[in-house]
């Protein structure tokens, strides 16, 4: 691949330079954006680069040779031009229009041969317009036309493409769509691109290099996005009053607060070019998207792909905090687990935590941006597109497939504008879509058909399969409906998935778990702290039949448990204060005095001690007296301790003495040090991670109960203390349990889904 560059070039008409001192280079696979106010001469530069306008001074060099001296046919094979000048030939199909681009490859009458037909089809496919092949060009939407014109430039098989405001007639979705395609082309075909772009936000998204042309016809700056995108500079360049600024750039307001990471350098690597994308959308919230994504992730992983989940925006109260202290949605954590990878905020760059009926705390890339009203956010979110794209991009660096999850329904026609979660997202990354309906809540055919009906034609074309989820009963009864659905919807049904009960934490099952009030043979109570963290510590108990785990909200509910657990907390001092004020403290003391076991994990361990001091102000400073059940004192440190731990239970006395000697494996995340204040404590967990006295136990280790023998022993001990028998057959450690659940999910989905269809939509060859 060769490069196009200028040398001391002045461009203009009739010997008068409009822009002078042009120094730029178009290199294979790189996108150069020309920006500047109207009339600055961007089109003139492009014409000169294309060789259709002679330079006023200086030269344009292609592969070292002067462009004006090249043979026209050679030049046309090297450079392709796409302009916005729209002359429609009547009755021409898209195939015809694109075929014109084969000028240099056809004979004297321009008849298109077989290889031309192939090139045309390929180009149409590449720009995602193959289904428009035989459509009348003049009847297409602007966005579709632009795609076809791009394909027309592509069939020239150029090394460099020159685009003059290719997005100017498009709506927001169309613009994003278009630049995504452009990026793909640059990457996959190694085509060098020079584009005059009007919308700075698009420039920010696609450009590898930005060339700024000033009003008085100079090349003022050339640099990367990061170098150019300083709002002060851009203001100067455009010489804009703020109002004119907004109208010129439409939805894209380049001013205002921007997170540093919101201006990504687009990485143009061959790696990510092979990343396949698949999106799962639902007809309504809780249609079971999260689990279907998890199941697909697991299936793909089993088939040898490196998979990552993605959901652009989550709305949930309960978030997961990553090792780096960043917040993200729980569903993606679960899906990441199904993929066998570590959760990362890249998988869920936007998290909304509702604060009241019409406002939310907005969290971007794991960190809080601020509180916004719904309407405010609706405007703000348009700026998040680059953040979303860069997250997908980064995920792609380590994955073969990204499975995306939509939110709510894609057919919320009042919210369609600037959508970044459903079809807008699918379009952004050019993902095929599977649409999931929930038969359990009834009306599944209406859900699916109605949703299809409300989609725009191009969105509808993205839907490659329908899924009926949560089906109970005899599938043969459903079959006629499925056939009718396929006929009317024009989209194949990829499968009918039966209703499944799984012990996999996700945002929906979590809320349900908090409300659970059943009683079993053995009852475990978990004090629900307001800053509760790491719920998963106790999931392992739920697999045992006869064991009930209850989250305790009120002090009077503390009685009658066979084991009381104080879980981890994100803010121990605040939670201890709450326990004291709400009367929980005395209830827990009373419970401990009854001789039944109390276990504190991490923050819970700290709370059980005598004092918690915060000299460095980690949790707001000061110090507070603990519940005083363990003679230990905690000092919070700024240094966070974060590590995987393996060890054993050393010398627990009291009711849980049977745990002695058992091995555990878990992890520590805490910011405190806890030491014994007096004699009389013994080591509970090894490695100075836990202490106990009598029936009160404390440990810093999360997941300490997850081991198979630990669960079995603990439950058996509690059962025998109470004099009941619990069936412990088939109880496994937590990790195995979850892995087994993912595999079960995957197996069920494999059985009921037409995987060939899904692989086909995904566009991958199965390596069977």
């Amino acid at each position: 691949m060769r490069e196009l560059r200028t040398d001391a070039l002045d461009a203009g008409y009739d010997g008068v330079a409009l822009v002078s001192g042009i120094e730029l280079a178009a290199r294979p696979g790189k996108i150069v954006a020309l920006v500047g106010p109207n009339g600055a001469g961007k089109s003139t530069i492009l014409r000169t680069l294309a060789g259709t306008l002679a330079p006023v001074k200086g030269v344009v060099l292609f592969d070292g040779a002067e462009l004006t001296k090249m043979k026209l046919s050679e030049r046309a094979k090297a450079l392709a031009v796409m302009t916005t000048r729209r002359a429609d030939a009547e009755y021409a199909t898209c195939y015809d229009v694109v075929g014109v681009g084969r000028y240099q490859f056809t004979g004297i009458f321009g008849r298109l041969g077989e290889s031309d037909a192939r090139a045309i089809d390929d180009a149409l496919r590449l720009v995602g317009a193959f289904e428009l092949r035989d459509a009348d060009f003049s009847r297409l939407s602007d966005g579709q036309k632009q795609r076809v014109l791009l394909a027309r430039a592509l069939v020239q098989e150029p090394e460099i493409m020159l685009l003059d405001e290719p997005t100017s007639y498009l709506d927001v979705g169309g613009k994003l769509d278009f630049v995504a395609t452009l990026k793909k082309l640059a990457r996959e075909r190694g085509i060098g691109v020079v584009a005059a772009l009007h919308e700075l936000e698009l420039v920010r998204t696609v450009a590898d290099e930005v060339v700024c042309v000033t009003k008085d016809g100079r090349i003022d700056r050339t640099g990367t996005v990061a170098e150019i995108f300083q709002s002060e500079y851009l203001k100067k360049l455009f010489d804009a009053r703020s109002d004119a600024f907004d109208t010129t750039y439409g939805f894209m307001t380049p001013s205002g607060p921007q997170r540093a990471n919101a201006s990504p350098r687009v990485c143009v690597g061959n790696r990510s070019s092979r990343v396949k994308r698949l999106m799962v959308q639902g007809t309504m919230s809780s249609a079971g998207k999260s689990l279907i994504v998890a199941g697909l992730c697991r299936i793909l992983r089993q088939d040898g792909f490196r998979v990552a989940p993605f959901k652009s925006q989550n709305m949930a109260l309960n978030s997961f905090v990553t090792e780096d202290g960043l917040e993200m949605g729980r569903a993606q954590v679960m899906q990441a687990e199904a993929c066998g990878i570590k959760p990362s905020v890249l998988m869920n760059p936007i998290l909304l935590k509702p604060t009241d009926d019409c406002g939310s705390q907005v969290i971007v890339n794991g960190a809080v941006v601020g509180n916004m009203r719904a309407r405010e956010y609706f405007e703000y979110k348009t700026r998040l597109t680059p953040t979303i794209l860069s997250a997908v991009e980064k995920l792609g660096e380590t994955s073969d497939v990204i499975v995306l999850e939509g939110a709510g329904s894609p057919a919320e026609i009042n919210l369609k504008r600037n959508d970044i979660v459903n079809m807008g997202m699918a379009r952004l990354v050019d993902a095929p879509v599977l649409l999931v309906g929930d038969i359990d809540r009834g009306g599944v055919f209406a859900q699916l058909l109605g949703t299809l009906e409300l989609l725009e034609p191009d969105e509808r074309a993205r839907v490659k399969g329908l899924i009926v989820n949560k089906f109970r009963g005899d599938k043969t009864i459903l079959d006629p409906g499925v056939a009718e659905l396929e006929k009317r919807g024009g989209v194949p049904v990829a499968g009918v998935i039966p209703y499944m009960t799984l012990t996999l934490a996700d945002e929906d099952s979590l809320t349900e778990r908090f409300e659970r009030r059943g009683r079993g043979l053995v009852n475990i109570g978990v004090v629900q702290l307001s800053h509760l963290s790491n719920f998963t510590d106790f999931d392992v108990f739920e697999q045992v039949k006869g064991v009930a785990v209850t989250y305790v909200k009120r002090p009077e509910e503390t009685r009658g448990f066979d084991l009381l657990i104080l879980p981890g907390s994100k803010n121990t001092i605040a939670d201890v204060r709450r326990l004291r004020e709400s009367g929980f403290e005395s209830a827990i003391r009373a419970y401990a005095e009854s001789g039944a076991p109390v276990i504190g994990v991490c923050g819970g361990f700290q709370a059980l001690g005598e004092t918690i001091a915060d000299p460095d102000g980690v949790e707001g400073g000061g110090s507070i007296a603990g519940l005083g059940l363990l003679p230990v004192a905690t000092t919070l440190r700024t240094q966070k301790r974060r590590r995987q731990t393996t060890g054993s239970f050393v010398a627990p006395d009291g009711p849980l003495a049977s745990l002695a000697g058992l091995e555990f494996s878990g992890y520590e995340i805490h910011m405190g040090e806890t030491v014994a204040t007096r004699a009389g404590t013994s080591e509970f967990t090894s490695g100075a991670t836990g202490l106990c006295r009598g029936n009160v136990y404390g440990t810093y280790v999360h997941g300490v109960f997850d081991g198979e023998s630990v669960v079995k022993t603990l439950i058996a001990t509690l059962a025998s203390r109470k004099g009941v028998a619990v069936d412990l057959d088939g109880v496994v450690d937590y990790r195995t349990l979850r892995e087994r659940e993912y595999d079960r999910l995957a197996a069920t989905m494999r059985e009921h889904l037409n995987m060939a269809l899904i692989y086909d939509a995904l566009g991958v060859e199965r390596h069977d």
Partner: protein
Amino acid sequence: MKRREVVLYAILVALVSTLALLNLASGSAKLTLSETSRVLFSHDVSSVEGAIVWNIRTPRMVAAALLGGALALSGYLLQAFFVNPIAGPYVLGISSGAKLVVATLLVASCRYGFALHSSMMVSAAFVGATIATTLVILVARKVRNMAILIVCGVMIGYVCSAATELIVAFADDSNIVNLHNWSLGSFSAISWDDLRCLVPVVVVGSCSVFFLSKGIRAYLYGEEYAQSVGINLPVFRLLLVVGSSLLSATVTAFAGPISFIGIAAPHVTRRAFRTSEPGTMMAGSFLVGAAFCLLSDWLARRLFAPKELSVSTITAIIGAPIVLSMLLERKGGRRA
């Protein structure tokens, strides 16, 4: 080839043949169709009927068909050149330009007494057509507006007509009658001799412009685009102008300025074939133009027989409504 094209070509060929036969069979001497065909196949020139059919009607028919086709092609090329569907040799004043120079030549020949050969007529018309076209192109450089371009063409036509009138004023009375008949458009005076010049020019000219079809295909999407795919624009434009001038000049030289075929025939072709493909447009326009011209000539002779109307009268009556409907349709259904 698509089904639609095959069917349409078949219909057009049948139509042209039928009209050709009809033309041979009609005129002031009453001949039935069977008599005509008998004379045709026997190739008997000695009889009166044979002489009428072979020496008078056949050249006229062949000229009408070929010139009609040439006119339609010329119109199509101009429409492509100006990216304007109502461009044509008549409205742009190109026919009038040709007429001016031919008239000058006619008057000069009478005054200075030299014999005119049809090739001289063609050359004169070509010179006139080229001058007029050049003028229109110069205007087109200044104005980008289609309507104004057409108005300018009409103006150039008027100027040429006025100049022709001026020249005619200095001509002899007998010449004036000839000139008048000629300038209204008529195929009546065409002989085998004329055909010897006309046929090669039209056939070669029409066939050569097919080589421009590939370029036109790209040119339809704009000059700049055409350049970017590697078309040598000055050369291509020159070829377009020369091609269309040559074709319209030939028509003018032999039959005088004939209106509307140049616009109506390509339009009808585009609608019927539902295509913009230059190859199809050219072939289709040629056939439609030929049929149109044959029909007009036949009507011109038959309508008020034995009085013969000028061909332009008929082409205007049929063609103008077609062009008008096209204008209205474009205005109504204009795409942004």
